[in-house]
């Protein structure tokens, strides 16, 4: 930029900053806000709303599974022709599982999780005034909001929402006449997803750019909290994976509406042979899972970052193996792109290729185990504070372990022949990415609620919420492993009608009641969340005695985050219970010169002057002791 010239355009030179100091109106503050903190709240509240809707959908199909022979006239009152004669119709059942999956994976655990915490934490924890492009950030939220509206609007079309599963495999998704859910519902699904991807990309581009360009003085990459590392790598995953889904969806739209046959071949519909030939449905699966597998890490990695941070703060200990934590996140990021084939073991894939995908898949167990070990080692002999956030973070680790173990079975190409598309898979991913990610998200909500709303949430309700949800989730998903081993297929409307599977009816009833209990537990959360915003106890500036930068901002939000200068960072974020320190935490903004008694030689690896000062301090200390 050496050629940058000062050029005076005279009268035409408008003051570009004039508009930045205008008074905030209701619309610019709460609706079309460009403040990352407000956008984070918008993402969170929309995400929670979508989560509640998806949960209600799951209760509806659980009722059908538990009572396939009973009629509930109330369902007809509520759902109309989707539930004629008091029973959910077969088509609507498929819509329910499809939309439940779509909303949970994309709208809650991608946008709701990353959108909330990347927006809230990236600028606050790296020390930036706002995102790289606040305008794009605002657009990102509004695209997400429109996507949510369009997705839900599909419940109001005659034939109902999309029903081919959240993976929308062709030909069901490519032929509007294939089944009721393939019609307008599928079209709305595609429109919604295109907007969703646009939202995700705008968000992700901003997150990466902000982390790389806008860190405050002293905040080098190795001084970033693990939340930021996780959200940063998640954003990279999204940037690389979502365009591939778009490519797959573009071809699908051409097949649906323009008569091409990328995915279609040899199809007879209602006895009429269709003109499509030469297409390959497996092509869609390749394109979909090239996104789809990174997508599950997009879901879990922010939860991992949040849990690491929450567990370190509440164990009053440095995170165990900070560098290993970062390298394992990077490892997961890289590996996630070369394992997609394990979703396709039974598509007639070349067994050699299956073997390759099997090996890459099983290698993911290594970084995952490193992370698990480090979490447990962080807890080990910690001075643990069991706040609700801490409980949820520990719960996240629990689910990640119990769900992750079954991944080792499913990753085997040979075992997958038996387990593919059974309840074993349902149990696996609901624990390892469903429950684990939700618990990470809830840990984040409880932990950063004071930062978002300036109030504290009620702890007792938090404990009630945690225990009911934690026990409920295990009661729901654990029995599903055994159903899967017995060969019970997923997505079936009434599998207990099969003579060989009748015995699972009692288990189904049990699971449904456990799910209803867990769903009711969320009422405790919602009540707590909403009342605390308005009537919660006021928080102090740093309620958890945490080291990271967000707690140096005033409780009252202001656009630009810090009044005056942005603080400089001198140390990593995990100086908890450092021997010799006055308190059990040293914020990142405290320079080493103010903590001479707790400094260690390895704090000065690239700072010889500092090391010299430390040695001098220690010799004088020793000399003084001798005098005494």
């Amino acid at each position, binding site marked *: 930029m050496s050629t940058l*010239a000062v050029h005076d355009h005279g009268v035409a030179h408008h003051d570009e900053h004039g508009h930045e100091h205008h008074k905030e109106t209701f619309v610019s503050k709460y609706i079309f806000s460009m403040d990352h903190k407000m956008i984070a709240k918008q993402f969170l509240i929309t995400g929670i709303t979508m989560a509640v809707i998806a949960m209600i959908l799951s209760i509806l199909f659980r009722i059908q599974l538990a009572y396939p022979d009973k009629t509930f006239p109330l369902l007809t009152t509520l759902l109309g022709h989707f539930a004629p004669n008091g029973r959910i119709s077969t088509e609507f059942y498929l819509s329910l599982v499809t939309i439940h999956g779509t909303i949970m994976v994309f709208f809650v655990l991608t946008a709701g999780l990353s959108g909330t915490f990347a927006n809230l934490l990236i600028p606050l924890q790296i020390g930036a005034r706002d995102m790289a492009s606040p305008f*794009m950030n605002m657009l990102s939220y509004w695209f997400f909001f429109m996507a949510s509206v369009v997705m839900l609007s599909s419940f109001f079309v005659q034939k109902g929402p999309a029903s081919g599963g959240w993976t929308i495999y062709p030909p069901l998704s490519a032929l509007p006449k294939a089944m009721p859910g393939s019609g307008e519902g599928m079209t709305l699904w595609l429109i919604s997803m295109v907007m969703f991807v646009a939202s995700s990309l705008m968000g992700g581009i901003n997150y990466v750019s902000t982390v790389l360009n806008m860190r405050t003085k002293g905040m080098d990459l190795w001084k970033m909290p693990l939340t930021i590392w996780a959200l940063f790598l998640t954003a990279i995953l999204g940037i690389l994976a979502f365009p591939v889904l778009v490519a797959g969806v573009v071809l699908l739209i051409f097949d649906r509406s323009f008569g091409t046959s*990328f995915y279609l071949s040899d199809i007879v519909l209602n006895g009429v042979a269709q003109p499509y030939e030469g297409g390959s449905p497996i092509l869609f699966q390749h394109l979909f899972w090239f996104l789809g597998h990174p997508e599950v890490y997009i879901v879990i990695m922010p939860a991992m970052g949040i849990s690491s941070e929450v567990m370190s703060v509440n164990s009053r200990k440095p995170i165990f193996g900070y560098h290993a934590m970062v390298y394992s996140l990077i490892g997961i990021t890289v590996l996630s792109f070369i394992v997609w084939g394990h979703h396709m073991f039974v598509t007639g894939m070349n067994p050699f290729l299956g073997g390759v995908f099997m090996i890459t898949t099983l290698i993911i167990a290594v970084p995952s185990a490193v992370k698990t070990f480090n979490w447990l080692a962080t807890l080990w002999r910690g001075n643990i504070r069991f706040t609700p956030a801490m409980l949820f973070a520990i719960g996240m680790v629990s689910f990640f372990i119990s769900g992750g173990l079954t991944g080792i079975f499913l990753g085997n190409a040979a075992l997958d022949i038996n387990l593919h598309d059974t309840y074993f898979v349902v149990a696996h991913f609901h624990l390892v990415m469903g429950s684990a990610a939700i618990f990470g998200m809830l840990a984040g909500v409880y932990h950063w609620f004071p930062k978002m709303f300036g109030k504290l949430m009620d702890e007792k309700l938090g404990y009630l919420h945690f225990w009911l949800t934690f026990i409920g989730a295990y009661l729901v998903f654990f029995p599903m492993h055994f159903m899967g081993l017995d060969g019970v297929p997923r997505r079936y409307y009434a599998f207990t009608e099969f003579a060989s599977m009748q015995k699972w009816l009692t288990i189904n009833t049990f699971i449904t009641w456990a799910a209803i209990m867990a769903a009711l537990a969320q009422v405790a959360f919602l009540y707590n969340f909403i009342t605390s915003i308005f009537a919660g106890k006021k928080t102090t500036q740093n309620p958890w005695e945490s080291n990271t930068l967000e707690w140096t901002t005033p409780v009252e939000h202001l656009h630009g985050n810090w009044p005056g200068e942005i603080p400089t960072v001198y140390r990593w974020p995990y100086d908890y219970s450092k021997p010799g320190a006055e308190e059990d935490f040293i914020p990142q903004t405290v320079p080493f010169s103010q903590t001479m008694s707790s400094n260690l030689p390895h704090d000065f690896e690239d700072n010889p002057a500092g090391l010299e000062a430390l040695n001098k301090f220690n010799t004088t200390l020793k000399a003084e002791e001798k005098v005494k």
Partner: protein
Amino acid sequence: MMASIQKNGDKLDLAPKKFNMWIFIFTSSMFFAALTSGFIVYSGGKGHGLNVIMPSAFMYSTAVIILSSGTLFLAHKAAKNLQFGVQQLYLWLTFALGVAFFAIQVYGWYVLTYKMNVYLTDPNASRSFVYIFTGMHLIHIIAGLLLILNTLTGSYRNIPQVKNLFKMEMTSIFWHFVGIIWIYLYVFLLLNQN
């Protein structure tokens, strides 16, 4: 409270925004990489080759888009030297070449469809891919043309030079990228046309 906030030195922090454009280019590259990989998986798996000799229109459009990159480079250079009239002239030239590229591509479709009987809805989807590649690329061309117009408007409105250069750079990054993508797609099609 609000009055006490100081913006960071009150200077426009444009570097992160430019970085956004680079990341978007990664995103877009992944999109075309996915489409071309899809082609390879399809034609390899199904044994459907393309078997179409690309119409010569695509060769001319390649020349036009390379030329447009040249004119945009000259516009950028003029902007740096404060020659705003020259900048506007070359921007208009780039815009015209972009429109010409668009027209030649559409003519290429016409040749493919009416002269060579290669259809979008061909049972051999390798051939449909030709339309998808060029069509998706043309969407990027439209975005690029809008960027050029935006820069031109700024230049006519005498916006500060820092912003003028910033818009110029954003447009350049994107337009050169779009050109490179077309060359990639064209070479890819040439290599696979048998």
